[in-house]
């Protein structure tokens, strides 16, 4: 058994995209790349957030609820996030390229900020204070310097929908705001991954012994969701490096049409990943966030491949096409000068 160590560092162009850079006036794509959100606070004080992005398992709706909750001053459990429904939500450009949080999340933050400003004006009128003096703290809209004078979002939402006689009419009824956000620039998440592998040079089998990922996607909205994205990404990158392959026979018949033949790694093939973060805010958006959806798949494929080649370096192996299946590794060892005899 030969042991190898592999590293990779990565930087990704994320936050797709500034429309003027990528659209018709930029590189020429006939599309725009901004994102939209609508935040509606109901008479009960609960809220619905509509986003043009689409959560398909990343937990984006959890993160978006947190972003809106912080800005509205309500519990995230009182927020429903609606996505993926063009019949209900505002126009959007969907989820890809690790953009949902840094573009779609920023739109949610901006719409929720606008709702907060309106809520402060309503609150100020209710408390006979200056809107400038209303602060949102501990889930309460309170008069700065007089913490016992406050209203909750539930009270403010009720007033927005059933206005008191003296509520200034220029505030407007209801409590909902939309925002569209077209980023000024891309964001650039980055990270460094390292791993240790053991290669059984008699059989060609690779065991990933240790995997460490340190990534920087800006301030963490939800650390558990970030870990989830890294775990899933690294898993599938290990799949690309060691297991997954689409194969056809000479007649063009697909040979890997089921998950029996198209080999995805399972928990039994993987070590417990070790993850950590640095948090360098992006100056591009108010959240400072940069995207994490693709980090694992970018970083782990070269790290694993480099580790296997490091292990086999003493045998003279310099190159193996992915996926590094046992037979390919065995072939490479046999073909390399100084390879171990069968």
């Amino acid at each position, binding site marked *: 058994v030969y042991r190898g160590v592999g590293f990779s560092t990565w930087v990704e162009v994320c936050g797709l995209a500034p429309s003027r850079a990528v659209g018709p006036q930029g590189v020429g794509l006939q599309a725009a790349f901004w994102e939209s959100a609508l935040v509606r606070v109901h008479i009960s004080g609960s809220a619905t957030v509509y986003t043009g992005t689409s959560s398909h398992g990343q937990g984006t709706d959890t993160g978006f609820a947190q972003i809106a909750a912080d800005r509205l001053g309500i519990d995230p459990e009182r927020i429903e996030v609606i996505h993926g429904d063009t019949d209900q939500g505002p126009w959007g450009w969907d989820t890809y390229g690790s953009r949902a949080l840094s573009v779609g999340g920023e739109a949610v933050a901006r719409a929720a900020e606008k709702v907060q400003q309106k809520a402060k004006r309503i609150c100020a009128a209710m408390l006979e204070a200056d809107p400038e003096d209303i602060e949102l703290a501990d889930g309460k809209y309170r008069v700065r310097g007089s913490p016992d004078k406050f209203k909750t979002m539930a009270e403010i939402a009720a007033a927005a929908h059933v206005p008191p006689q003296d509520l200034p009419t220029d505030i407007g009824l209801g409590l909902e705001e939309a925002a569209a956000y077209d980023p000024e620039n891309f964001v650039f998440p980055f990270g460094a991954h390292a791993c240790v592998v053991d290669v059984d040079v008699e059989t060609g089998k690779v065991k990933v012994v240790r995997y460490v990922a340190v990534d920087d996607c800006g301030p963490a909205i939800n650390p558990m969701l970030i870990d989830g994205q890294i775990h899933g990404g690294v898993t599938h990158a290990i799949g690309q490096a060691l297991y997954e392959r689409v194969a056809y026979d000479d007649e063009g018949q697909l040979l890997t049409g089921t998950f029996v033949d198209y080999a995805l790694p399972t928990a*039994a093939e993987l070590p417990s990943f070790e993850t950590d973060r640095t948090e360098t805010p992006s100056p591009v958006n108010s959240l400072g966030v940069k995207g994490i959806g693709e980090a694992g798949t970018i970083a782990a494929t070269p790290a694993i491949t480099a580790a296997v080649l490091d292990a086999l370096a003493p045998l003279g192996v310099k190159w193996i096409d992915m996926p590094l299946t046992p037979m390919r590794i065995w072939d490479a060892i046999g073909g390399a000068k100084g390879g171990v005899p069968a």
Partner: protein
Amino acid sequence: MIPATFDYAAPETLDEAIRMLADGGEDAKPLAGGHSLIPLMKLRLATPWLLVDLRRVPGIHGIQLENGNWRIGAMTPHAELERARELGLAARAAATIADQQVRNRGTIGGSLAHGDPASDLPGVLLATEGTVTVAGPGGQRTVAASELFRDYLDTSLEPGEVLTEVRIPTLEGWGFAYQKFNRRSEDWAMVAVSALIKQTGDICEDARIGLTNMGSVPLRAKAVEEALRGQPLNPETIGTAAQQADAETSPPADLNASADYKRHLARVLCRRALTEAAGL
């Protein structure tokens, strides 16, 4: 992924099951854990008209010791074999089958009757020189492991017959090992080797080696067994003998392994299994 239409019955007695299967002929299949037959039906590689589920048939489940033999009911799931460590080789091999969910459902009888040379238990039955008890319209008969596997997915069971029990000699005092190679733990064996060694001091009195997925049926590595009999067991003798592990085999190439690679794996796994079985 949707099977062709079929009828289903779950008889309460063995006689009733046999009658249903005999009446159905080639179009009726017994159903045990369903982890081989059902996938074949979903791929429409098998299209039985009638499934006769054996789950309600009494007396064909469980493990007993009798006169130097383990008597294992055909409906005993792999998970129970895995937990019965006293079974030795069979328990060791059963623990490597697919994943826990499959081991909870799949049965020893189903696996043997299916006759897949890539499955783990056929090679174990062959190496241990076990037998199976088969019940049919004409009564009961015993089939030796060496007579059971005829070809790929083909056994000497006749239509209307039900495999009811597996007998495996206890082989007390024998060393054993099961070496299985696959890409992922849930995969079928690319190659696997069952090894049994009886030794006095360091002299090999007898050796039995089963090969999984090295041909259209499970095989014995006779050349290796003969090379070791009467010889001292050490890394050199084992290493030399194991070089013949692929003799008289014709492993089918597949997506992830050429025939040459499988032959190489058989030699490596045979050496490792013998080394472990000999306690070296």
